[in-house]
């Protein structure tokens, strides 16, 4: 009934999955549309572990659809907004999370991308500038003058709100 599709990861390993599951990815969908299901699909940008995680998401979302996450986030805790499973799914190390984002972007899986981005956003939400820098390992290359300038430039916006 359901045709199996062979995916080749970065390491060259083959993973067989249900066609319908992977049709969520726009990239794979277009490739299948082009060359049919018989051909292997090479995914050189995605490692095997990440691919497996992505597939896990694809399988789950088929049965438990995920509503679009509202912007901006209402809560710093994703559990308040989406089902628990999804929160657990993205509750991984930062490295993995970014890889998932990249993979989702590459494979063009919109719900996953949104979910992962939202997760990153929760890590930023409500944090001070310094905390944000520390969390994401961002190097401060702004001079104090520039910082002041940014503040000055955007002051009007802040005032307008209050």
């Amino acid at each position: 009934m359901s045709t199996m599709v062979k995916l080749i990861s970065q390491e060259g390993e083959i993973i067989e999955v249900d066609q319908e599951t992977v049709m969520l990815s726009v990239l794979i969908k277009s490739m299948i549309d082009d060359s049919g299901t018989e051909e292997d699909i090479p995914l050189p940008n995605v490692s095997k572990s990440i691919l497996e995680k992505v597939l896990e998401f694809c399988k789950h979302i088929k049965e438990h659809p995920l509503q679009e996450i509202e912007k901006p986030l209402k809560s710093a805790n994703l559990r308040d907004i989406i089902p628990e499973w999804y929160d657990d799914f993205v509750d991984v190390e930062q490295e993995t999370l970014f890889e998932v984002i990249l993979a989702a972007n590459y494979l063009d899986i919109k719900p996953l991308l949104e979910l992962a981005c939202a997760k990153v956003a929760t890590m930023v939400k409500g944090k001070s500038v310094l905390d944000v820098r520390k969390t994401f390992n961002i190097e401060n290359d702004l001079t104090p003058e520039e910082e002041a300038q940014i503040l000055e430039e955007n002051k009007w916006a802040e005032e307008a709100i209050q």
Partner: protein
Amino acid sequence: MEDSSQRESQCGCHSLEMLPCELQEMVLSYLPHPDVFNVIQCSHNMYDIGRDLYRNKFFDKEYHVMKLKKKQGIRQLKEEYIRNRFNFIKEYGDVRTRVVKTVKASIKLDPIEGKKCLEEAKAIQIDSLHRKGAFSTHCGGFANAVQCFDGTAYLTKEHALDFGFHEVMNESINYIPEGTCVIQIDCGSTDIVYISPEDKKESYGYAYTIKRTEENELSAPILIDIPEKVKWVCASVSHQFAATIDDRVYCWLPHADCKPFEIKGLFNDDNEYDEDGVVIKEDTKTSEKEDEELSIQQQLAKSTHEEKKRQLQEQEKLDRKEKIVHKIVCGNHFLLVLYKSGELFNVSINENSDSHLIARRVQELEGKNIMDIEASFTHWIAFEKTEIKPITEWDNMQTSEWFKRIGFDQCGNLAKYHNIEGKTVYNADEDYMEDVLGILDPVDQQKLRYEINQVRETKYKDINLYGYGANYYGQLGLFDKHASIPKKIPLPPLSYKDDYILRFACGRRNTAILTKKGELWICGHCRHDLKKKVNKEKVNKEMDKDDNSSSDEEKKTVKKTKKEILKAAGKGKKAGKKMHGHKNVKFGSEQFEDYLEELEEDNSRKKNFRKTRHSKHKHNRKTQYMREEKKKVYDKEMSLDHRFVNFTDVFTKNEKNIPYKICNVSLGIMDFAVVMAYRNEKIEKVATKGDKLKEKKKLCTIDKILTQLQKTRKFDIDDFTINYIDRFSGIVEVQLRKFLKSSDIPLHRIQTLKKDMEVYWDKKDRIDLFQFN
């Protein structure tokens, strides 16, 4: 987190910055506005990515809508909070905001001066009782008590309320065991009595006494062994009393054995007693009953008797319904028992009357609907309310009277002779009115309907206070020295609309009345000693004036007499024979000297006589003056409508202008204590004379009237003449038409406008017969 970040830095590709720009933007798009601002301050890179997003976000319509919603939400929340708060105040404010204030009881209350004598009165708030939900205060001779809504009662044995309660609250010295629910408490001159129920929900309980020990301390509560549950207690100087749920009244002496005995001669006692308490006439009913009971005991098996007994019991129950004790109060030498039916019984207490006390009906107040009583050491006050029943409960006579009063005389007779009761009138429809009552005019029918609506509910007509007892201090609010029969007390006019007297309180020297809307009037502590009242200084001054003038006269007379003597002496020298027509004395002899001495004596005697006469005269004048002054004061006192002084402002005035309402009052020997709460309702003042003057209609100005006159042509202008003030010749009368045509005198000088000599408009007297709107 550190590990991962280290690894990230090692890899160098897994920071937020390493993501493609559009992904970074996507992450940022999830963030609320302020967070984006934080992120763009992190680094150049982030700034470049986030800046536009930040600004776009700010201009984003949805964002603004959200912001607005949020603001509205906050406002709504605030409103809700305020509303909730308001509801809270409405529901619980009365209890939660209660404060207790006191004023020294030594304040003199002169009804002539009125509010002036309150200038020095200062109310002190008892902070320790704040937010305790105080219900009432009780000031006794040795201890004071405060009863709270939750059933707790606080006792202090300090005279000064404030200090005493401070101690109680801070060090939790309370003489009533913790957790005791107190239903009612009363403080006598040395001892305290209170009721505590087994279950908090019950309104009856057991009576406990706390007495003063020999070491001037308060003892532990003593349970009084009364066979029934108690619903009301009161304490006097030496005795304490309790009314039970079976409507018996018990008395005991807290300083003796605390053994309660029943008071005889009350409503439920059918026996009659003579003055020594011996039964004169035993009611036949009771004896029959006893007989029956005996027979029942003898022949228990016979069921017929049991039935009879049950019937009797039921009958008894019915009888007793009327005989429910409503309240008991006591003073030094009396106890008053008030029944729900309005009957009042008096029990006089002597020191010797240990075990038998007999109640007598207060004959003078029989038939009056007494609703409440209060008493103090030497006086008591009864509160009568005359009830007007609703129309549905009227019989034909009442209906007839009512008809006559509202101007339907015919119907009055109809109701009288056709047995029309109030209920039928109340349910009357048009046909009934036309056919039976003969009211055909629809206007009259309307009027009748209106009148029926007016009497649909029970109303209280007259509220009277009757005072009895000593009035040394004017505590009865009467002018007489004593009230040996209950006398009606003149009451002050209440300043709020639809207000009525709710409570009253008696103190040693005072009586207070408190209205439903929180107005407090107190009378008393104003001796009737008129001598004191008369301004002594004034009298003395007057007398001094008289003295001065009289002494002048005296001096003159003295001078005169001296002159006379000299003259006489001269005459004597010259004539030597006739001296004042007294004696024939020869000049130049010893006799003459004797004569001179005699003359001086005579003079001094005369002077003395004058003096005594003068002092008598002075005394007479003084007494007369005093009498006159006395009469003036007396007349003034007699002309007073009432002898109460308005105390409301003393307590309710505060710096923050919080609208407080007085809820309860008690008058102690040292302090007047008042329980106040936040006033929730709006109150309307009764319009006084001053207000009425202000409300006077504005007089229509003359220019308006003249224009209207010309416009409407209702009147002929030729008929009118006017008076105006001329600067030189005073008031001048001219025809209006002439005035309008030729004169250039300003209109405001016009004083009067007349039509055929009848004044139609007058500036001074504010007459306006035109009534143009």
